[in-house]
């Protein structure tokens, strides 16, 4: 069968991407160099969750309006210049995907859209998916995102048509000698820091809780005992968010409570140590 390599053993088949012949590659190069007309897009859904489709249609609606660049979604692959593959390529959609590819006239641009189309996304290790458009077809442009925003989609089209350059580059970091992680909020005792972070997370979740805890601790470190309340009030007034005010007020109360208790506890511990030594 086309694009499939039969295997012996437990792995029965393996997908081989269809090859592009030299002539088509040359045609494509010429097309991309002086593209003057609008590009028509045909959308192939290879088993996606439809979030990608919603974003594609958001891209052609008036707010983002990809049609001002002549990019138009068409209903047949025979009209298409660009093929947009979404979804993790389920086994059932492999042949229809290849048929759509064959039906589109050369030269054509294949775009793999969304996390699933690029690498299988969260479905990458399912038994029934091929895990990415590039497993079955030669892909020209990858647009990552789950789903990509309309703006990211427009950027992807621009990259595909050679109007904008890609910004992302592969990175490889190797740990340097004497590379040390810096601690945050060293001005605050660790116990108090843990308490503040824990309280903030219980109010606002991990992500926003951490942001709120960081901001609160920055205020605490900068402030002196006599102006800490004024500083917190100024910060809350600046933000003007009743939810934030509620959380910060509670954090402050928790800190004050712990400080009161902490001193008493320290005395008790000191007494205990003295007794042991005595």
């Amino acid at each position: 069968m086309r694009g499939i390599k039969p295997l012996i053993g437990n792995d029965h088949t393996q997908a081989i991407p269809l090859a592009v012949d030299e002539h088509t590659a040359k045609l494509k190069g010429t097309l991309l160099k002086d593209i003057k007309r609008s590009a028509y897009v045909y959308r192939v859904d290879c088993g996606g969750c439809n979030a990608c489709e919603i974003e594609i249609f958001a891209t052609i609606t008036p707010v983002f309006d990809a049609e001002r660049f002549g990019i138009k979604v068409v209903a047949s692959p025979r009209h298409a210049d660009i093929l947009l593959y979404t979804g993790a390529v389920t086994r059932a959609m492999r042949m229809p995907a290849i048929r759509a590819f064959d039906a589109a006239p050369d030269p054509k641009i294949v775009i793999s859209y969304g996390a699933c189309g690029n690498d299988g996304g969260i479905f990458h290790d399912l038994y029934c998916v091929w895990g990415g458009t590039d497993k079955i077809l030669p892909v020209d442009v990858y647009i990552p995102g789950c789903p990509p925003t309309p703006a990211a989609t427009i950027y992807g089209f621009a990259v595909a048509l050679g109007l904008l350059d890609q910004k992302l580059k592969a990175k490889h970091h190797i740990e340097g000698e004497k590379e040390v992680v810096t601690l945050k909020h060293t001005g605050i005792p660790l116990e108090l820091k843990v308490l503040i972070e824990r309280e903030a997370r219980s109010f606002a979740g991990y992500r926003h809780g951490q942001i709120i805890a960081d901001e609160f601790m920055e205020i605490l470190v900068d402030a002196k005992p006599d102006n800490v309340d004024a500083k917190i009030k100024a910060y809350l007034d600046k933000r003007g968010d009743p939810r934030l005010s509620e959380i910060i007020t509670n954090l402050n109360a928790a800190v004050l409570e712990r400080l009161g208790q902490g001193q008493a506890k320290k005395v008790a511990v000191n007494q205990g140590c003295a007794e042991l030594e005595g």
Partner: protein
Amino acid sequence: MFKLLKTIAKAGESTTKYPFAPLEVGDAFRGKPEFEPEQCIACAACMRACPANALIMETNEQTGIRRWQLSLARCIYCGRCEEVCPTGALKLSAEFELAVTNKADLYQEAEFSLSHCLACDQAFAPKKAVQYSLDLLIQDGLGESQVEQWTKLLNTCPECRRKQNMLEGEGILQGHMLTQEFTDERN
């Protein structure tokens, strides 16, 4: 006709200027995860949290290297890695222009070296994680006299530490808690 034109004029232009002008995104926008390798302790919390397996860590005990890899192709930009990162090395940025023509550019890698056990010379934990836990202990008020002892302890693999902490072993830290008087007092 005039009424229609008036309505159109009133509505103004709703189409964004992007890509001719930069697009403003909201505060909570989850774009490309920005990785700061200097702040990473290679604890692998992000790898465990990643629902899409976009983050991968591989430990090679022979070469003493732990490799961290992020595949932006597979990433679903959920921000779970940012939630769990203890040092804030991973943060989701507002960067969304990620389309590439070359798939290799979607991969980001980092290599971290492992600490070798003082007793058996086996690689057991990332160097930076060991240093980080010591720094935390110091921040928590570890006395200067104890730093050396703890450095030795933290640079020992769990296996050897367990052996050393046997009743007749060397380097026992909690010995005073094992006396009969202490147990009686606690009970």
